[in-house]
């Protein structure tokens, strides 16, 4: 029987396997940010341990970072950033701090620096570490105790998850994006459909996606409960990587290519579960509830709990609608928003900003909307400015900000006020995620851009050409 991509990466990183025990898995790259690491470094200090492989560890500042000039950083945030800087200095961990020019959201800078490569194992104290799987790496989020374990040993004790393949076929309609594909898939699977699994996304639709699109899809694997998402590396992957600072050079590049080409899943490999999704006829997606699986096409309506047979589902829907202040049967397009956020590790890469700018160009943000664009990294910001995208956004009335997590989770000054409704390109619409009492609707960058202009949910088709 053949092997899957996941099997190959897993097997090649086993340090130890013993009966009745979790396996010991070697970690090739450990990414660190300020929120989930202080207690781990403290643990090392207390036990008198060192960081085993600082050369396989990289830290950045993202969650607490202030992205605008309007508010200063609060004291606790400043302390947390200071603690990271001190810990990195003490333990010899390379750090891209604010202002270094290489800082940004941890899941944006790994790929951008060429550190995220096919066949690697990558972990970070952050659930969206699944993002890096877009390169054919096995990448997943861990908690602080495990961060400490990786710092001290460069390994993790893990039980091997099961495998699932989601095969996307059909013709992707114009204007429908990777974000819509993954939201629709989570809608199908449910927010716990992937629990215990590593998902491989495959099929012609995935093969045609850019690296940015693939990163968006793998990013949201955790929203279906999956440990990780993976996509087989191919020419698109290699073209993206070549020449980046962390990528192999010269003869080493040729050797790496040879190795990477052996990674994809064998034709006769068997997955524990398989799902096929036809994307023909798929529309732009908008979430209406308080988890990412509560999603409908933009042409749809807010669902009616009364029509649901399952009592748990009905109760959850009623709770969600009450929180979101939505009436069953309301057309999605009729829902007005007050805020628009384009950013986060799901959709803040250069291609996302290009897609949003293409919609925005020549239009103006609706007078009742406050809209912001937050690039995922200092380098994305620089690139966007070189292409003049910042001008397009600013001329249209968007705020153009510095890199960071920003309003994805509101650990910094960018938060929704209670009751505010936001079209957001981020990944979580949990209660209070973007600010206590805030109401989040997840959408693609193109829909977020059109919505900012229309003042209610809209896609680009709807805007009168400027």
């Amino acid at each position, binding site marked *: 029987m053949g092997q899957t991509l996941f099997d190959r990466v897993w097997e090649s990183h086993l340090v130890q396997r013993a009966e009745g025990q979790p396996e010991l898995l070697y970690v090739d790259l450990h990414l660190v940010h300020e929120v989930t690491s202080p207690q781990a470094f403290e643990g090392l200090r207390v036990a008198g341990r060192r960081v085993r492989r600082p*050369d396989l560890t990289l830290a950045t500042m993202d969650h607490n970072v202030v992205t605008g000039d309007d508010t200063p950083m609060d004291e606790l945030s400043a302390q947390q950033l200071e603690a990271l800087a001190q810990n990195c200095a003490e333990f010899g961990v390379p750090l891209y701090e604010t202002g270094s020019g290489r800082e940004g959201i941890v899941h944006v800078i790994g790929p951008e620096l060429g550190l995220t490569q096919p066949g690697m194992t990558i972990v970070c104290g952050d659930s969206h570490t699944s993002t890096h799987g877009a390169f054919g790496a096995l990448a997943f989020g861990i908690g*602080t105790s495990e961060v400490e*374990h990786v710092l001290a040993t460069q*390994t993790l004790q893990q039980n091997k998850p099961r495998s699932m393949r989601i095969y996307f076929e059909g013709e992707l309609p114009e204007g429908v994006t990777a974000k819509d594909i993954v939201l629709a898939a989570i809608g199908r699977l449910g927010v716990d459909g992937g629990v215990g699994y590593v998902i491989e996304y495959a099929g012609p639709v995935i093969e045609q996606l850019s690296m940015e699109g693939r990163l968006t899809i793998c990013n949201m694997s955790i929203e279906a409960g999956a440990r990780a998402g993976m996509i087989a590396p191919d020419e698109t992957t290699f073209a993206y990587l070549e020449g980046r600072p962390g990528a192999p050079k010269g003869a080493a590049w040729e050797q790496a290519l040879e190795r990477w080409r052996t990674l994809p899943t064998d034709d006769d490999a068997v997955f524990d579960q398989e799902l096929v999704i036809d994307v023909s006829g798929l529309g732009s997606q908008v979430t209406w509830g308080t988890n990412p699986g509560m999603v409908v096409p933009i042409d749809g309506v807010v669902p009616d709990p009364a029509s649901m047979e399952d009592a748990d589902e009905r109760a959850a829907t009623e709770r969600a609608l009450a929180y979101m202040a939505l009436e069953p049967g309301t057309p999605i397009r009729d829902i007005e928003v007050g805020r628009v956020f384009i950013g986060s590790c799901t959709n803040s890469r250069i291609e996302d900003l290009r897609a949003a700018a293409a919609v925005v160009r020549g239009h103006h943000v609706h007078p009742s909307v406050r809209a912001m664009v937050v690039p995922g990294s200092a380098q994305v910001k620089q690139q966007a400015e070189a292409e003049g995208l910042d001008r397009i956004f600013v001329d249209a009335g968007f705020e153009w900000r510095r890199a960071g997590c920003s309003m994805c989770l509101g*650990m910094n000054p960018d938060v929704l006020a209670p009751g505010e409704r936001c079209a957001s390109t981020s990944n979580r619409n949990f209660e209070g995620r973007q600010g206590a009492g805030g109401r989040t609707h997840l959408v693609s960058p193109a829909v977020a851009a059109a919505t900012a202009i229309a003042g209610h949910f809209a896609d680009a088709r709807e805007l009168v050409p400027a």
Partner: protein
Amino acid sequence: MKAFRKVTSHALALDRPDVDTDQIIPKQFLKRIERSGFGEFLFFDWRKDPGFELNRPEAKGAQILVAGRNFGCGSSREHAPWALQDYGFEAVIAPSFGDIFRQNSLKIGLLPVRLPSEQVKELMTRADAGDEITVDLEARTAGGFPFELDDFTRECLLEGLDDIALTLRDEPSLTAYESAHAAPIATNAL
């Protein structure tokens, strides 16, 4: 890690699915750099509702939480199990858990117990009636129902073992792996 052997207590039922870690401990409390003191912020926003389960008189002193499926989904924040443990919970029983939450809980000695939905429903009824429930890790039972947990993890929990020390004991395997596999990257050489 805190050792876990056996706990007998009345229980609190939280009968809703997909309780995410953003609800268990909202983001504004993640800025602390300590491991302790999160209990008072547990379910911070939901607790503002006087009808919320944790505000009921029977919640006082409950050491066992009985919850709906996919408990602890979402963010990897270990602050969520820290908050539950700091508040006084020793075990959480649910039909399923978010993977990272479950792993984090096991690492700190907060016991996540997976039971079939019908059994969880029954325990919720018993919790609402104020009955005491026993979670016994040695016997691998909760409220009399057997649950699964691998021997190694059970041993670590029973003894409160430091898993980093366990891994480091295997230094020869670590070094052998490292000398056989050249690192694909060097973060300090960019």
